[in-house]
């Protein structure tokens, strides 16, 4: 096993793990592993964006409790805690169009504090970069965060993998982790196929300022065109009450709302959010994301593992996409660290098999549930409407079932990796 990654430019850098991609999943994995003493190189294509620049994007992420614990275990949370506490979800309200039946999730039902946190992606990126910097600066630092740099070629053999970087350096590692997103270079390199499904829907996303406080309430309103969600955010300068809107629209209806002037768009939002937030004004531009499910047929290949969106991307109806990515991170980090603490090869076939066994079933079942929910809720056929009204009322009246749903949405079901249980790696 190798010591701290070598820092000589132009040389071959040796590490146990090379993480390709410095997004939420990739950099969290790199920080978790380095924090547990594993030498890691993270090849990140982007520099962290600076607020006020073109690269800065106002998107937000709803982090489930399990994800918070993973970020805590990776040492990232302290760098983002204040902003995240301001976006705590204490209460989730689910409503169906015109339906008097309300599904009301309260954190007291689960008894675990805040149910989740809505955080600006830029805040998470910044926290990750800070944590990575602190880990690299530590004596005997085990993390080398290279940015901006791309992997231009990858060669895998029985003992490990060698990657060529765009800056001319080379990295030799026991294991390569593809955390490089939906169009993963690593996935294509290994010839791993994907299954895709498009919903004919697009998510319209923006942040809003509103007159009244949100009280930590997340609203999910199921409309025939698709779900409409209002998620609480922390205040920022000039916006004391702030939330994030995720509005899924049929593709043919997208242009109608995307291109409205701000004032008219705000009125449309107010109609759908209801009166409890008071007057609304958009405080960011609108982004649109086509919705669909993508799932890799395998998560592993010789010396290679995929995490996050490189392995699975899904409809954000239950806000699960990035949370699934962090569960991948927790499982892979544990498999690698356990093997290393037994003196075993951290990129060996048994480590990869354990990771795939652990995560793939969980992800497939969540994708199936979400897919079924999408079809059920994005539909105006009368019997289906009745079924889901009754279904939601039934869930509401059966506390154990409701608790299971909630704990699932919070990432607390199944055989949990140590990081998700809030234990050290």
């Amino acid at each position, binding site marked *: *096993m190798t010591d701290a990654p070598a820092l000589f430019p132009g040389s071959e850098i040796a590490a146990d793990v090379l993480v390709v991609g410095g997004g939420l999943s990739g950099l969290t994995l790199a920080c978790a592993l380095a924090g547990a*003493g594993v030498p890691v190189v993270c090849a990140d294509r982007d520099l962290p964006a600076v607020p006020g620049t073109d690269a800065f994007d106002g998107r937000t992420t709803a982090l489930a409790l399990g994800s918070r614990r993973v970020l805590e275990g990776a040492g990232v949370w302290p760098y983002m805690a204040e902003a995240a506490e301001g976006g705590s979800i204490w209460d989730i309200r689910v409503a169906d169009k015109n339906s008097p039946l309300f599904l009301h999730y309260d954190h007291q039902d689960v008894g675990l504090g805040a149910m989740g946190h809505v955080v600006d992606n830029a805040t998470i990126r910044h926290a990750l970069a800070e944590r990575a910097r602190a880990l690299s600066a530590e004596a005997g630092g085990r993390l080398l965060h290279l940015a901006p740099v791309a992997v231009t070629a990858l060669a895998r053999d*029985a*003992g490990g993998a060698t990657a060529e970087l765009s800056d001319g350096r080379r990295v030799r590692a026991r294991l390569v982790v593809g955390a490089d997103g939906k169009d993963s270079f690593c996935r294509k390199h290994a010839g791993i196929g994907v299954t895709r499904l498009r919903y004919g829907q697009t998510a319209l996303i923006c942040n809003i300022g509103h007159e009244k406080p949100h009280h930590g309430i997340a609203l999910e309103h199921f409309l025939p065109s698709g779900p409409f969600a209002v998620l609480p955010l922390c205040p920022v300068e000039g916006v004391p009450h702030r939330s994030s809107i995720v509005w899924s629209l049929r593709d043919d209806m997208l242009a109608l709302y995307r291109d409205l002037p701000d004032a008219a768009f705000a009125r449309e939002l107010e109609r759908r959010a209801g009166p409890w937030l008071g007057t609304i004004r958009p405080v960011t531009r609108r982004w649109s994301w086509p919705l669909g499910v993508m799932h890799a047929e395998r998560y592993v290949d010789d010396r290679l593992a995929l995490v996050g969106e490189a392995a699975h991307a899904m409809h954000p109806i239950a806000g699960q996409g990035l949370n699934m990515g962090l569960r991948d991170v927790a499982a892979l980090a544990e498999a690698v660290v356990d093997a290393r*603490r*037994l*003196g*075993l090869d951290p990129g060996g*076939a*048994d480590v990869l098999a354990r990771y795939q066994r652990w995560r793939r079933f969980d992800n497939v079942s969540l994708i199936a549930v979400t897919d079924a929910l999408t079809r059920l809720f994005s539909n105006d056929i009368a019997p289906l409407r009745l079924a889901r009204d009754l279904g939601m009322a039934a869930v509401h009246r059966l506390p154990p079932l409701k608790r299971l749903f909630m704990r699932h949405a919070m990432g607390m079901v199944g055989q949990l990796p140590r990081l998700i249980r809030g234990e050290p790696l």
Partner: protein
Amino acid sequence: MAAPQPDHAPRAGGTVDADEVARFSAIAAEWWDPRGKFRPLHGYNPVRLRYIRDAACRHFGRDPAAPEPLRGLSAVDIGCGGGLLTEPLSRLGAGILGIDAAERNVRVAEAHAAETGAPATYRACTAEDLVAEGRRFDLVLALEVVEHVADVPLFLGSLAALTAPGGMIAMATINRTPKAFALAIVGAEYVLRWLPRGTHDWRRFLRPSELAAGLRPHGFSVRGLTGVVYNPLTDTFSENPRDLGVNYMLWASRGP
């Protein structure tokens, strides 16, 4: 504690036959292929490693989560085969010597360690050879060996003689029970064909009590004893202290 001693005797006397090296590397690849013919051993290996690591950490007061928790300890792996146990333990910091009576196994293990850069050393010899040389180790390992030796009391005496003052012995073997006959012989050799027929002779299997009784005259007491069970549904091995019926592991040290 006895200091780790290098054991790198250049057997080929400086003239290394390239064909020979290639041949042993090919066999090493076979030993070390987790999907190859030693697949069951690869599944079992993490369980054995964890047991040895945790027992040694308890005995020597180390933290199993620390990097190189066995650093500074000397160890001998008797019947090392392709080095599946020797090599990982060398990465955990132990100054370890793997020995095997079969020259071929030792060459295979050496070839693999050279490829991975693991600091393990190997020698083709028997436990009795090391006793005759007066060697002592903090950690004496005999996993899946005692069921193959011709003279069990002599072998246990050698293990004791090789153990440095304050050191420990760790062993793994198969129990002499009807269940072991069904699973380890009929199951592993005839049904699953994990092992060649005739690998094991049920009459040579030892009960835990027999091993404990064999170590006692040398001043050793058994400190830990656990079973290992195979789950065919998940294809995984795990420790089970309540099921000693087939595979079991134990560790022992001097004193009452």
